[in-house]
């Protein structure tokens, strides 16, 4: 009798002992999280089928901060949930690597110039990432070499999201107005030096908003890219210069052309011919050569007049950057899942969509430990469901596209921890 009491006591007090009470031989829990029954899409490893995923057990955190990031332990059919501290039921859902948004503006602050460099047009990353499946954001040119330390202290160090940076070629960063027209502040050497000193966070360089027909800024940018051996991203401003020249004379394979689907002829050359609506042959050639075409949707850069003909002709963007900032969050763009859904409505297939926000951006920013579910990769995982219904999607000039499906982020895991769970599909974790 007392023995039974003791067993009951054990069953109640020892985590994981519930298996005994059900007459099952208890196993040592060797995984942190097992995601069960989802349709895994892992473009790097060519996986596109129902699989389970297990993560390593997270080491205890100190003051709420993880000391090390657990990795992907196993992707296989039928992983035993009894081996996991926590189980996620992903039946009927897609499971992908944690999404990487290669084009965001998260250098928020209240400084005087107040644009995208320590300004309030930038947004707080954690408010927009996990709920839409994103685990890594690249700030696209908020900080310059002069402001990177502030960016690190105010943003990178306190964000739960993994925040990386493309340094602006302008030393002052993306402060708007005259700051970004100042060629005298575009120092290739200093910018490259700051990037190399902060290699852990800096993944490339950005040029944006330049308003004159002058190649000097592009030259300064690519020079920094060569010195640091990092890619550059170009927002081609409003100088109405030749795209072909940019792609073939200045940019290297692996460099990024953003706002690919904008439509502002006379201000910036579109990728399609305005008469024939055909994708210009040199644009396809540039993509084949390895130039990365990013969407950078934003509040002024995604236009169906370019997007629909381009997609119909099979010209897909390489990356689905959102250009997240205060003016795009409530407009046509909204968030990463909405951008996914827009491309689904334009008949991009799901694996290609996932790839454009996981493995392709990971390779582009040279972070191959991200954006995939190989054993040993960082345990960043996103669970996404597909809604069926009548949906509508607009572009930045107010044209509408119907859609029958919409992506919804169900759960996000960053560094082996559940950081968002829309419908409580994860179990209460067992204590280690």
């Amino acid at each position, binding site marked *: 009798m007392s023995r039974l009491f003791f067993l009951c006591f054990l069953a109640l007090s020892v985590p994981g002992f519930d298996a005994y009470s059900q007459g099952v031989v208890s196993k040592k829990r060797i995984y942190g999280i097992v995601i069960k029954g989802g349709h895994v899409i892992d473009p790097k490893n060519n996986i596109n089928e129902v699989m389970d995923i297990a993560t390593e057990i997270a080491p205890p955190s100190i003051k709420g901060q993880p000391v090390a990031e657990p990795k992907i332990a196993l992707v296989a059919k039928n992983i035993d949930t009894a081996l996991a501290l926590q189980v996620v039921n992903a039946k009927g859902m897609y499971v992908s690597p944690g999404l990487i948004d290669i084009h965001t503006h998260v250098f928020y602050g209240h400084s005087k110039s107040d644009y995208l460099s320590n300004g309030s047009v930038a*947004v707080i990353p954690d*408010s927009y990432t996990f709920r839409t499946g994103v685990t890594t954001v690249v700030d696209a040119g908020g900080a310059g070499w002069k402001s990177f330390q502030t960016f690190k202290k105010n943003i990178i160090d306190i964000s739960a999201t993994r925040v990386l940076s493309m340094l602006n070629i302008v030393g002052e960063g993306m402060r708007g107005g005259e700051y970004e027209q100042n060629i005298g502040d575009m120092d290739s050497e200093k910018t490259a030096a700051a990037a190399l000193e902060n290699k852990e966070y800096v993944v490339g360089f950005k040029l944006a908003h330049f308003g004159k027909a002058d190649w000097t800024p592009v030259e300064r940018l690519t020079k920094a890219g060569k010195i640091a051996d990092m890619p550059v991203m170009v927002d081609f401003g409003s100088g109405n210069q030749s795209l072909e020249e940019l792609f073939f004379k200045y940019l290297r394979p692996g460099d990024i052309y953003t706002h690919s689907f904008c439509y502002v002829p006379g201000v910036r050359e579109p990728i399609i011919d305005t008469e024939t609506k055909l994708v210009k042959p040199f644009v396809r050639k540039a993509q084949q050569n390895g130039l990365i075409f990013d969407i950078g949707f934003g509040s002024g850069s995604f236009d169906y007049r370019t997007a629909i003909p381009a997609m119909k002709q099979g010209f897909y963007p390489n990356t689905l950057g959102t250009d997240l900032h205060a003016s795009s969050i409530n407009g046509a763009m909204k968030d990463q899942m909405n951008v996914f859904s827009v491309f689904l409505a334009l008949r991009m297939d799901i694996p290609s969509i996932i790839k454009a926000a996981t493995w392709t951006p990971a390779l582009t920013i040279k972070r191959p430990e991200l954006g995939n579910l190989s054993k040993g990769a960082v345990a960043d995982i996103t669970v996404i469901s597909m809604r069926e219904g009548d949906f509508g999607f607009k572009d930045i000039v107010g044209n509408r596209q119907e859609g029958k499906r919409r992506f919804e982020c169900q759960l996000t895991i960053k560094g082996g921890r559940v950081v968002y*769970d829309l419908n*409580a599909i994860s179990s209460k974790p067992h204590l280690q």
Partner: protein
Amino acid sequence: MKKFPILVVVLLFLATFTNAQSKLYNTLIKGGRVIDAKNNINALMDVAIKDGKIAKVAQNIDAAQAEQVVNAKGMYVTPGLIDVHAHVFWGTQPNSYLSNGDVGVTADGFSFRSGVTTMVDCGGPGYKSFDTFKKNIIDKSQTRILAFLNIVGEGMRGGDYEQDVSDMDVNLAAKAALDNKEHVVGFKLAHFTNPDWTPVERIVAAGKLANMPVIIDFGGGKLPIEDLFFKYLRPGDIYTHVFTELERRDPIVDLQTRQLRPFVIPAQKRGIIFDVGFGGGSFNFNQAIPAIKAGFLPDLMGTDLHTGSMNGSMKDQLNVLSIHLAMGMNLQSVIERSTWRPAQAIKRTELGHLSEGAIADIVVLSLRQGKFGFRDIAMNRQEGTQKLECEMTIKGGKIMYDLNAIASPIAK
């Protein structure tokens, strides 16, 4: 014969042009079910907007009379939601918590997509920091931002700042509130941990001086809430985090018997207003479910939005409403508690309703059917079959958010 069609085209063009100029309404929301608690409306109605105001609420308003039509068929149309408990005083000042610190969030990132048009910052600034709050937050936000001024002069800076009774200056707090009456709607006390009634006395004194309500987060002093409700607070004052179950706070549901304590409903009848204030640590099904079963409904659906709640169980205003639907409250009831009741509680009766002539803050919601799950802050789970989704948010007549592009022509 050849000229005739051109003439027709020209005439048609002119007609269209003149027509657009002379339309009665800017925007017409057509075919939705209107829930307007103040006016006792819960029926299929159209809502017309002109010059930022509600122009007409009636059945079958002619779509031809509006420049822009919103197709709200199958959806609910309500006044813009008012979140009385948000923390939006974000900033980069070190060690500043919810007062110009990194735990506050940007209002516009959470408001419109969740149907909220008005947010009340719940004690971020004190009288010393209100000007910074106005410059950095109120003036820069598209959301209508109001404030409960913290009784602590330094505001909600966390730690010892909020324990400093000597920084709770009744006169200076009341003066700052009255000087900024356009934005300040009351006072907040929070996080005080000693068993000492002085802070409560100070805040109520400020409330009396300014003739404004106070909202209490009842710290950790384990003082009896019955005394708070009957001896200290006035009718119209607000008790927040009503469904918390924390060691350090006196709960509304008895921990042994799991019954609603007998004085709670009488306190509500006395006029004490109860706010949910969900947050990162203040909503437990173990309190909420028995309380609601016993007939106690919270008066206000405040979110307690901040970085510690936005990605957790709370998420956003519509998730909080949906949780209350899952616990058995009805739609009319949760809408009323996030529109007309909060408007009354903060004495902003120009908000929270759809009377003709009112500010055109309007939300279009859809009610999704399916299998949903909700969590409290202790990781307990509750199933639900309904979930609210924000389709469109209009503030002052302007479309701020349009999830599925249901306006025609589309707002850019």
